């Protein structure tokens, strides 16, 4: 399939697709980070993860409408307020869900999966009832429109760049939170040895709730970021769930670096293949490769070998 292109053409194809891949990568990272916290650290499968993202997207939509109507002068900065609000709303809902549902099911992972699927159905219908079945889009602030010319032929869309920067900052923030904060220490202690953590005075129940809440909050922020590059519908969340889980599992559950590395390889593979094949075949081949590799190496790319 490469025979029809010259070397120069191939290089610029890879560069262009590579950049499209970088945007996809940022999207994957944003989606996967929250899940990496919840699944990687707590071992909980949250099938409603996509709906938490969509919740963040709808919050952003509402905020943008509010600013448009009442504070058009401040429209340039509405996104940052929306993002913070998305984090709080999704995080709060996450903590409520943990308290009512998840905490009863820690010993039954398969049942958690079913219960959170039920939650996702309820949230979807809620979105549909409130916002209608059609997709909604937000108005992007002026400064985020247009693109930066890099060379004569390559232009970089600013909103894509913004999402990229956002993904990187959030990853860095989570890294700091996990490895430099007291909460991170407690989470890691609970993961390593729940009974012992309990015994040394860590409130494991509160830690669990907070962890789940933060994971959901990050999903909400991811949803907010999505509004900058696409529109939102009640069932958009379901489209992401398989990719997101594969990214996390492929990276090796529990490894933040692994999640980012796997998001990078999957997104790059998919966007480069997309140029040569139809979009659906590119996706099929990428996902098949991921599933195939997972069958050979079920622990994912990065995983600790533990003494059992």
């Amino acid at each position, binding site marked *: 399939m490469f025979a029809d292109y010259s070397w120069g053409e191939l290089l610029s194809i890879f560069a262009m697709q590579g950049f499209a891949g970088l945007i996809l990568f940022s999207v994957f990272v944003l989606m996967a980070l929250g899940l990496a916290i919840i699944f990687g650290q707590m071992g909980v499968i949250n099938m409603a993860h996509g709906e938490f993202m969509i919740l963040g997207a709808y919050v952003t939509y509402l905020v943008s409408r509010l600013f448009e109507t009442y504070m058009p002068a401040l429209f340039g900065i509405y996104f940052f307020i929306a993002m913070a609000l998305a984090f709080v709303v999704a995080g709060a809902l996450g903590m409520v869900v943990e308290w009512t549902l998840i905490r009863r099911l820690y010993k039954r992972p398969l049942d958690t999966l*079913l219960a959170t699927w039920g939650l996702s159905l309820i949230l979807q219908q809620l979105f549909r009832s409130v916002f209608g079945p059609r997709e909604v889009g937000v108005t992007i602030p002026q400064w985020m429109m247009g693109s930066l010319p890099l060379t004569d032929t390559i232009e970089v869309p600013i909103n894509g760049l913004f999402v990229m920067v956002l993904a990187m900052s959030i990853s860095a923030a989570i890294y700091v939170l996990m490895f430099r904060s007291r909460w991170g220490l407690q989470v890691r202690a609970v993961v390593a040895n729940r009974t012992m953590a309990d015994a040394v005075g860590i409130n494991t129940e509160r830690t669990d709730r907070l962890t789940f809440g933060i994971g959901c909050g990050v999903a909400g922020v991811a949803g907010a970021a999505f509004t900058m590059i696409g529109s939102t519908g009640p069932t958009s969340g*379901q489209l992401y769930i398989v990719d997101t889980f594969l990214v996390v599992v492929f990276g090796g559950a529990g490894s933040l670096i692994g999640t980012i590395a796997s998001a990078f390889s999957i997104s790059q593979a998919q966007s480069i293949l997309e140029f040569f094949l139809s979009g659906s075949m590119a996706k099929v081949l990428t996902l098949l490769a991921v599933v195939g590799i997972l069958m050979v190496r079920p622990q994912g790319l990065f995983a600790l070998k533990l003494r059992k």
Partner: protein
Amino acid sequence: MTDFPSMATGRDGRFLNRTEMLGAAALALLVFVLLPLALDPFRLNLFGKYLTYAFVAVGLVLCWGAGGILSLGQGIFFGLGGYALAMFLKLEASTPEATAIQSTPGIPDFMDWNQITALPGWWQPFHSLTFTIIAVVAVPVIFAFIIGTAMFRRRVGGVYFSIITQAIAAILTILIIGQQGYTGGVNGITDLRTLNGWDIRTDEAKTVLYFVNGALLFGCLALAQFVRRSKLGRILIAMRDREDRVRFSGYDVASFKIFVFCLGAAFAAIGGAMFTLQVGFMSPSFVGIVPSIEMVIFCAVGGRNSILGAVWGTLLVNWAKTTFSEGFPELWQFGMGALFIAVVLVFPDGLAGLWKQHVEPLFARLKPRPSAPQPAE
């Protein structure tokens, strides 16, 4: 759980214990007598469709209830079985005479629409009914065998297995939709007419197919019961609880998991083929993530440990779905979501569990206590 001998272990020598016998008789009465008498052909066909999902649910009782393996990709096998038969029926419906207006007569209409001018090689064998009937079961089972071998040999289980099977279901759906020239795309394979010359669209044909479907389902139920009553059934339960110990009792755990996963796939495939026959088409909307996980809920509502319960659960949920989603579509979505949560939190053993907990004690109070369970002879 009570002190009574658990149904799952079939302690006494009989194939069915008293409760199971009653349950099976009641189900047979419903499926073969009451429904056909009470319903018009259209509604009966609808229940026939529900019963095809029951095949999947029964397979899930063995995999998930007994073996602890939760597949979220049973739609794969339902779909493969259904598509295999749909391909045969489509070829039969695409005679050169019937498709004379196409630019290439004699090939399925959707191929013609997608500028395909010759039947692809892998469609050719589906001209033969014998091959098709073998393929309906063999293709999904081989597929399940490959997935099962790859995963269980490497000790992938639990939620990882669920996620991977779900991903495969998603991949297959994308593939079917993307390759519409070969698969009929998002519409699926439609406009099926005759089976070896017998028109499957008439009311009489649909009634006959309903009974064939019911008979096949009872065949699968008997097979499932045989498996559960055998030592293999007890090994599955042992495996679910203490996989390690089963290995050190000398069993190759992976081969048992592969077997039960393949058996579940075979059941699902038969259901899929019967679906195609009764409903008259097959499409990717019965393959993907959503239908696959819904099939799990049919099984969970009936009772993940009860093969008869799974059938009742399937009928009930689908009947409710049809009834409510006609009148109150919004409410139904909420209801379905609530059902997933309730079946996990409130009644994890499903209808069968509720029956055992609340109804059986009532019977026991009405009658003098039956003699104590027989010790193993």
